[in-house]
């Protein structure tokens, strides 16, 4: 009952390779069917996100080199030359494959350490594979455990609690000041990439009212339409400052918002709290504005500092998350070993019966003087002997609690009595 993983991710492959090896939902289903039809795997599941493509599978016991067969299959399925793939693919088996999956679902293997999306992606990939019948008892157990690991890491550690981008750090700050953003208004000056990231975050966090302002009104309208905002003409920016609680500025011009302008706006808005996020370089907001009552001013460096602090804080949580991962890896392998032990014992019993039958068939012909009752008695005695010498001690090995010893026991049983089952 081997578990094989072949895949690539943001660490091992550039985006040009990752995009060629990614699977759509339909491709994943088709590939899973192929892999089982071709006898490479009995169970399989494909996890494909923008940062990784991974195929997990349980090969039949008789299958030689399943990882190599899978690599070849991936190469032919996506039409990517093997030499391009070989440098990018990683291959894991058993413990290493299980540990990798658990690290993935915990967010430990993500580009942004601890990001939460991956757990949803694992859940979705598993759901699709399960519904199409691609998974079986082993992968079901494995992925359920992976989802549990992801959940535990997120609830028991702080790996995913702090914002890791400038835009999300800004939003978290806004929530520190205003609480929920549903009843608040945000004005975004500029409609470039950073502004769009911020607008997307504002929408995700349920901002009540969104205003977009840009020198090019067409671009402002395009962004406003996409995110359900309202366009404010550039000429009215000073008056527009009086309404919103959050102002995000990311335009390529120095000191769009001078200290006096902000002071006038604060006076007009009767000093209602205002969060100014200055994401422009050169800075768009006069630093003197930070001294005004109820003004919270953050520039790009301030927000980057927060992100850096958060990154360090997340990194300090990695050992805690790793402990959870290890705990579940041991738990899974213990389950796997128990199942394996049952299989080995059943095979052993079958083999002993076959050996006994062959032995008796070979020797009973020389013992024709024995009555049928005596023959039956001899067969029963042989059964008792085999049970006493082999089956009972082997059965006791099932109770072993130490995972390492348990696995060693299984291997010893295989080596001694079932060499034909030994995959090595």
């Amino acid at each position, binding site marked *: 009952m081997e578990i094989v993983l072949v895949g690539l991710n943001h660490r091992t492959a550039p985006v040009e390779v990752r995009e060629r090896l990614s699977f759509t939902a339909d491709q994943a289903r088709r590939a899973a069917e192929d892999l089982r039809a071709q006898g490479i795997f009995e169970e399989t599941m494909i996890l494909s996100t923008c940062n990784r493509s991974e195929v997990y599978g349980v090969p039949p016991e008789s299958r030689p080199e399943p990882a190599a067969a899978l690599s070849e299959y991936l190469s032919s399925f996506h039409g990517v030359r093997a030499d391009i793939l070989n440098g990018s693919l990683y291959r894991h088996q058993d413990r290493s494959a299980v540990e990798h999956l658990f690290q993935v679902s915990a967010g430990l293997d993500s580009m942004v350490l601890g990001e939460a999306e991956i757990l949803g992606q694992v859940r979705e990939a598993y759901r699709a594979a399960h519904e199409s019948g691609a998974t079986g008892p082993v992968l079901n157990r494995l992925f359920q455990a992976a989802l549990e690991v992801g959940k535990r890491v997120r*609830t028991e550690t702080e790996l995913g609690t702090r914002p890791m981008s400038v835009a999300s750090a800004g939003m978290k700050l806004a929530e520190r000041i205003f609480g929920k953003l549903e009843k608040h208004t945000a004005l975004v000056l500029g409609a470039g990439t950073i502004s769009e990231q911020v607008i997307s975050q504002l929408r995700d966090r349920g901002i009540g009212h969104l205003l977009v302002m840009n020198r090019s009104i067409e671009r402002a309208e395009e962004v406003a339409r996409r995110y359900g905002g309202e366009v404010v003409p550039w000429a009215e920016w000073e008056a527009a400052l009086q309404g919103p609680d959050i102002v995000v500025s990311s335009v390529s011009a120095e000191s769009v918002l001078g200290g006096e302008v902000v002071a006038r706006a604060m006076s007009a808005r009767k000093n209602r709290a205002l969060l100014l996020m200055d994401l422009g370089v050169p800075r768009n907001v006069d630093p003197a504005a930070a001294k005004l009552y109820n003004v919270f001013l953050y520039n790009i460096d301030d927000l980057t500092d927060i992100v850096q602090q958060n990154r360090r804080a997340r990194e300090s949580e990695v050992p805690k998350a790793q402990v959870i991962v290890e705990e579940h890896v041991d738990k899974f392998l213990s389950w796997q070993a128990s199942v394996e032990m049952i299989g080995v014992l059943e095979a052993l019993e079958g083999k002993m019966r076959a050996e006994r039958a062959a032995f008796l068939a070979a020797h009973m012909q020389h013992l024709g003087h024995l009555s049928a009752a005596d023959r039956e008695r001899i067969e029963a005695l042989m059964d008792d002997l085999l049970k006493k010498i082999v089956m009972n001690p082997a059965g006791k090995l099932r109770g072993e609690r130490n995972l390492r010893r348990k696995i060693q026991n299984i291997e010893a049983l295989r080596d001694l009595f079932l060499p034909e089952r030994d995959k090595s």
Partner: protein
Amino acid sequence: MQPLAILTVLAYGVSLGLYFRLLYADQKIVGRAATAMLAVSLALHYFFLLERAHQLQAVPYQDLYGAVSLFAWLLALTYFGLEMVHRQRTLGAFLLPFVVLILVAGMLGRPGVPAGPPPGHGIVFALHVTLSVLAYAAFGLSFVMSLMYLAEETLLRRHRLGTIVWRFPALDLLERMTRSSVLVGMGAILAGTLLGFVAVRRLETPVSHFDPKYLVTLAIVGLYATYLYLERQTSWRGGRASRLCVFNFAVILLSVTVVNLFLTRAHRYF
């Protein structure tokens, strides 16, 4: 020292430890455990106050220890109510140290058991005192939250976020919780004062109506009414309103220490 008193302090201590843990680890289960432990502490504290009242045949505020213990209980109870309404647990780590400190200080400086039976002031008087203590507890809570507001605002404005700011409630929520607490305090002090006048009218012996306590209470009501008005004005919202709230509580401290002990006879109970 009564075992129930020690048990109560221990329970508050465990709850405080859990609230600290929540501040550090932000885990839902820890938060729930902290709240549950606080509920247990409140129940133990209640039974302690009840048991003590039965033993001494006296109301809790008959001596300083009892009054302080009652104050601590009402402080924790008001916080518990606010936590339930606003679903915000972070404050526990900042408030419960006061509760534990008050209880321990009360235990250490505990005066002897009151000599005689309590004066027969009746239920109206008992309600007057209890509501007044509740008002002080609620104002005390608003004081702690105002301090938290000022600390968080300063950290946010100076960009010194660290770990702690991410755990604090939003400034907006702190403002609302402070307002809720002041409203509880105002309701209690107004009702308590009214009942105080009713109790005075029932007394057979004449009482001076020039008690400085009346003036201070009037000032407290006026100051908190001003707070409730100003904190809704946009030019006062935020730090200014919180500073006023801190100042108001300083006046309360003046009222229950200097005024009660040195300037009035009718309100010097211990």
